[in-house]
């Protein structure tokens, strides 16, 4: 069953993958294609959870629909697999009902920005205290490679047989303009940096947005003759430039163009709950009991 190069150590008995305790083992192997990068981002997320030192009983993960939407089903945390595009509204409700929770939204680009684009804009505007991880693979993976709001100009998709002519979203710019307090973009190649960004995001209060570029070997790469998943990751390695604190206006992605990665925004703004307590405390005075304050003191 297993190949080990250390005699005397039985895999699964004496030693196990450090990520395994975070996964629902009965659901492994997962359904993601060979060469898909979503598993790598999950790996980074599990390690970020270890490093963040959070109590795992107080972490909840919310996913929408799609390939990345299956993450909630594979992680051994309190998880929520929601309707299409509505991961952020569910997460908002979860956070407000139990302000002690650290709520993480883990979903794909189509779910978060096409079907649920409106919710993303408003959660960022309100600075809701959630962390959003968007795995961007430039296409709708699960439904068969339709053009997504993040597909760059040029590549062929099933609904754009002569190449895409729609202008794509620049996700970090959108998040920054809407008021997210932490915006970072990394690729599946930058595993250490992605882990660090997720750890910082887990410990940051406010609306955190992390974009992780990931290859889609079955639909995006194959249709555009870009090779296998690993060839896309090699492209990320060659063409990505780390520019921390870059102006998010300049980080738009083109087809197989240079990728600017890094931590773009890290600022402080009062979260929705803090703003509500502050405002209502000022207006109503003694009559108002602050809500969810135990979390603020943590």
């Amino acid at each position, binding site marked *: 069953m297993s*190949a*080990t*190069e250390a005699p005397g150590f039985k895999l699964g*008995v*004496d030693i196990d993958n450090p990520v395994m305790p975070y996964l629902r083992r009965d659901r492994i192997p997962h359904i993601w294609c060979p*060469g898909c990068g979503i*598993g790598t981002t999950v790996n*980074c997320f599990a390690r970020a959870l270890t490093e963040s030192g959070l109590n795992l009983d107080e972490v909840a993960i919310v996913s929408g629909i799609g390939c990345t939407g299956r993450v909630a089903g594979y992680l051994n945390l309190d998880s929520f697999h929601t309707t299409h595009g509505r991961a952020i509204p569910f997460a908002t409700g979860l956070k407000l009902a139990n302000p002690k929770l650290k709520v993480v939204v883990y979903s794909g680009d189509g779910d978060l920005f096409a079907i649920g684009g409106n919710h993303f804009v408003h959660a960022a505007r309100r600075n809701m205290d959630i962390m959003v991880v968007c795995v961007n693979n430039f296409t709708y993976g699960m439904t068969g490679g339709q053009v997504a709001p993040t597909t760059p100009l040029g590549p062929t998709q099933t609904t754009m047989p002569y190449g895409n002519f729609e202008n794509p979203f620049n996700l970090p710019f959108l998040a920054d303009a809407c008021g997210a307090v932490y915006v970072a973009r990394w690729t599946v190649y930058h595993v250490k940096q992605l*882990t660090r960004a997720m750890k910082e995001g887990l410990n940051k209060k406010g609306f955190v947005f992390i974009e992780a570029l990931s290859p889609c070997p079955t639909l995006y790469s194959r249709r555009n003759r870009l090779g296998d998943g690993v060839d896309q990751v090699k492209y990320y390695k060659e063409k990505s430039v780390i520019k921390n604190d870059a102006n998010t206006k300049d980080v738009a992605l083109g087809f197989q163009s240079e990728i600017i990665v890094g931590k773009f925004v890290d600022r402080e703004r009062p979260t929705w709950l803090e703003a509500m307590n502050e405002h209502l405390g000022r207006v109503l005075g003694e009559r108002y009991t602050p809500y969810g304050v135990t979390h603020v003191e943590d």
Partner: protein
Amino acid sequence: MSEAETVRRGKGTIFLRIEICKGCSYCIDFCPTHCLEFSREFNRKGYHYPVLARPEDCTGCDLCGLYCPDFAIFGVRFKDLEKLKPPQGPEPLIPTRP
């Protein structure tokens, strides 16, 4: 110095669940010391899995474990491996959720 002592030994090793590997070659291509290679054999699903072709080069850095999208492979340093196995530990050491 005897000949046996001059043989270079790696600083670490890998563990792999062959049956959940999908042969994406992330670990092989991004191993910093290039010590992994595809196996000649297939696993039950028909994928070639990685094998430690040059064990003397493995440092046990666990970058393969960080890259692996299928949670199949991971690396350990021998230093940490020895700590894991107590001299007479009756209970198996399966890591539990922290």
